[in-house]
């Protein structure tokens, strides 16, 4: 049994991201003026500094840009090994998520693998994890 995941402190900028999973949404901040995305979420668009921004439910699919098989238990009781990956989101240019690749053996993960989001809920926070697309 793994220890609980570290819990993000919810605030104005990040709540839509960490709770969107309740509706099955992976929310990334999108600009209403230039159409580009900002992640981590901020109060303005990082491309044109517009304040006309809002969380946008993106497809929730992507590819593994890079990954590491982690063997070090960073917390007491943490089961290893597990995969930490950087996922490049489809349709969201320039946005990457650090996440875990789940529901497959660690040695089944490869660069360029197509993945899709699955949410793991813990006390109202919905952690976006990814699994391989069959």
């Amino acid at each position, binding site marked *: 049994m793994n220890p609980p*995941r*570290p*819990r*993000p*402190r919810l*605030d104005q900028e*990040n709540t839509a991201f960490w709770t969107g999973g309740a509706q099955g949404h992976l929310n990334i901040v999108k600009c209403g003026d230039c159409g580009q995305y900002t*992640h*981590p979420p901020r109060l303005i668009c990082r491309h044109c500094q517009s304040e006309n921004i809002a969380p946008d439910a993106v497809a929730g699919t992507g590819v593994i*840009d*890079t*990954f*590491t*098989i*982690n*063997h*070090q238990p*960073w*917390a007491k009781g*943490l089961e290893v*090994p*597990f995969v*930490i*990956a*950087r996922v490049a989101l489809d349709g969201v240019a*320039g*946005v*990457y*998520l*650090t*996440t*875990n690749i789940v529901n497959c053996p660690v040695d089944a993960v490869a*660069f360029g693998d197509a993945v899709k989001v699955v949410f793991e809920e813990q006390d109202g*926070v919905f*952690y976006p*994890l990814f699994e391989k697309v069959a």
Partner: protein
Amino acid sequence: MASKEAYITGVGQSEVGVRLPRHPLLLTLDAAKEAIAEAGLTFDQIDGVFSFPGKSHGYLAFSPVGTDEIIEALGIKSKWQMGGLEQPAQLSAIGMAAWAVKQGICRHVLCFRTVYEAGGMADPAQYMPARSETVSGASQWTSPFWATSAACWTAQYAARHVHKYGLTRQQLGQIAVNGSKNAMLNPRARAITKEELTLDKYMDARMISTPLCLYDCDRFSDASTVIIVSAGDALDEIKCEPIRIAAMSGSVDRYSWDQVEWPAAYDAGRDLWTRTDYTPADVDTAQFYDGFAFLPITWLEGLGFCEKGEGGQFIEGGTRIARDGQLPLNTAGGQLGAGRLHGFGFAHEAVTQLRGQAGERQIAGDPRVAVATSGGGPLAAALLLTKD
């Protein structure tokens, strides 16, 4: 014109240890006294105190001593103090001091970096951060996925290098093996490296986060390193061989390791050569930040000692980076061999080599040009140091 130049004059270092009983302020004092004595100065001639970062109140073991405490403890009348985490990276404290003396704001700046991360483990109540219920800031994007250490972040850059360019563990291992070999000849590294690391032992080591194994990660230590930066028009006050800060560069990207395409070492590396007539071919020794063994590869490539992607081939077999090789690397052992001095150890060693004072580990051939770097991920700073 020499008066507008900046020089490293005194360098000093405390004992380097693991769980030293000596208070970090006193370790800083040890290093400061050595540096001041070497420069031939007295504390009342110091008029600036710089560090990277300032005192870290949450995680005291990481940075236990503030610039204000040094001003207080040493009775310094300071014109300027600077200790921000917002600087490009560790060595930028020295770079900023160079800037301050070039501008005529200060004449002799005491730069220091004190770490107490091994000792802090022994006294967590006083030195380690209180356990927090929640994560915020940059760590909220990594810690929830147990990417809680910079090892996991660096590993992802390293893994991409393995995938894209074919970096092998045997190649990567040369950084740690070379560091250990050099550390064996560094009296200050004795608490960290007691026996030479072989490539076989490296290959057998347990993984931390692929492709980084145990020996790819530097070791917590307790130590202080002090570097005195002096103005060109104040050199008549010093009694040691001045080493010129011929160029400096830095790079600060978004503090989101996972949103950064390439480590900042590539930008800082390229920029360094736009500020000098020297070229990589002139460099006699390189002291590259090796908090993780992969980072020197980013500096080798970023500074143009080889093409992007060819760092693995550059260090293949270890002969090129050995003390008698084409580019002697981390001659004091680096952080892998001599402890996590957090960047300042590289400037200290560069000056020591250029002065021919490195004892048994001294490289041959009267080195005149050295490069020292610091940082990983989105932070980077580099210094070009010359004897001229």
